């Protein structure tokens, strides 16, 4: 048993690599050989994780991935626990259908981070995804529970159709953010385009946002300004074309 498992990208994929086998909780019971033998799909062809990554360590629920994984999709898919730290960007479907644990991405993520698998009604149902960069379209789409934090910009339709949970976007949130939101919170610390079906409620200091941002600062070492922790937020209720129990909280200053 090791303290952590490190996957180092040795052979960059020439086509899209679907590596939905990479999940911290799954690795907790596997030897290095078993991890290397896990199946992946390169283009449309089957391959193994060991064809691309060098595996160091075994039987640990802390997993570190090194290398540019921008062509690798579905990392952390269905993850239920443990910690996955990724040094570099990843492709689409990061942490789809995740239910627990934490993914800490030091780079950008493609579309549908924390979202739902194709055809599924629910996106992530628990856990935390911290993206220290920007995300593609529809990050957090149909999220049922959990936390998605984006320190950069959000793509189009961030948090689209969220059922519950929390999405924090520190940069600019793309158009259609929060559209079809049922419940849940989208906290926009930067610029955000409010859907027409959201209605302004009030400007106040939401206590849970202060708690959340302090937690992110302490636990995830996110650089959050104290003016954002203690500041005022405009609250928009929505999506009123849906259940309308969700909210878009837009930071407006000290």
């Amino acid at each position, binding site marked *: 048993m090791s303290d952590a498992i490190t996957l180092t990208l040795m052979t960059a994929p020439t086509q899209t690599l679907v590596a939905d086998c990479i999940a911290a909780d799954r690795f907790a019971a596997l030897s290095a050989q078993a991890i290397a033998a896990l199946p992946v799909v390169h283009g449309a062809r089957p391959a193994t994780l060991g064809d691309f990554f060098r595996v160091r360590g075994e039987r640990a629920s802390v997993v570190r991935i090194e290398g540019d994984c921008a062509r690798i999709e579905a990392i952390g898919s269905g993850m239920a626990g443990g910690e996955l730290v990724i040094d570099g960007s990843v492709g689409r479907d990061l942490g789809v259908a995740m239910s627990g644990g934490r993914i800490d991405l030091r780079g950008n993520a493609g579309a549908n981070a924390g979202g739902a698998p194709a055809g599924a009604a629910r996106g992530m149902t628990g856990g935390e995804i911290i993206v220290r960069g920007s995300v593609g379209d529809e990050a957090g789409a149909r999220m049922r529970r959990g936390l998605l934090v984006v320190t950069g910009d959000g793509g189009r339709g961030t948090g689209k159709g969220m059922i519950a949970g929390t999405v924090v976007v520190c940069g600019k949130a793309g158009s259609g953010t929060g559209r079809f939101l049922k419940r849940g919170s989208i906290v926009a610390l930067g610029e955000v385009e409010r859907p027409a079906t959201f209605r302004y409620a009030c400007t*106040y200091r*939401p*206590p*849970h946002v202060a*708690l*959340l941002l302090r*937690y992110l600062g302490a636990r995830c070492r996110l650089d959050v300004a104290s003016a954002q922790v203690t500041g005022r937020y405009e609250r928009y209720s929505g999506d009123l074309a849906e259940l309308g129990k969700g909210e878009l909280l837009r930071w407006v200053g000290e």
Partner: protein
Amino acid sequence: MKINGVAIEDTFAEAFTMRVARLLITGRTLGWAREAAVKLTGFATSVIGCKCEAGIERELRDDETPDGRPGVSVLFLTMDKASLPEQLIVRVGQTVLTCPTTACFDGLPEAPDRLPVGKALRVFGDGFQASKVIGGKRYWRLPVMEGEFLIEETFGMLKGVGGGNFLILARDADAALASAEAAVAAMTGLPGVILPFPGGVVRSGSKVGSQRYKNLIATTNDAFAPTLKAVTQSQLPEVVNSVLEIVLDGTDGPSIEAAMRAGIRAACRPGVQTITAGNYGGRLGPHHFYLRKILG
């Protein structure tokens, strides 16, 4: 044994096992947090009449609270498991929820026994309440006229200790009061301990039951009442004309001992004749705090 010329009687304080919860109340200012805490812990001196005992443990700096605001730590004790959540739900709902700017957090996160206080209070939101899970803990957001009230879903419960005590036997009332005030000042803010009575001091210590009224569970401690020295089996020396008691509850025995040590040492002042303690011969409470051992 004597400290500053004050005799320390060779006896022990007898205390009981209680259930304890710790609440962290924060506010926009320390004043508002304290206001809520004072109301929450009002009329909570003794389980005999109040069904619970509560008090402010200490004030908290911004960096000691979950939401980074100033706050107050409160200990809350009852005699049994069932009544602790009942008392908390009623009192937090009427005092902390109603107080501007406050939020309420659990101060015993490691305790395995969880009391669903926030979970019960959430229905005040009439369906408009919402929950958030932050760092693995669930919080409830209740929409209120001011904005939102935030409370943790569950609060931890531990076995605590209630009824630690010592008595100050003084030559006159002024000396007894000055001694008690010094003791309270020395004990205030010590971790894991509260002094539930007014100003931390009791002037009307009680005995179990009554000599005269069958339905009373507690009546005046006539053996320590100076005005009854001539007509009852008094335990007071001739020179003692006033007695005050310090009662303390806590999260555990060592916290009680540390506070009693600090308090008794501070209480040994001019005009004080003896420091003693209340007990029932060791028959009722499992926790025995021997004065000389604590001070030795």
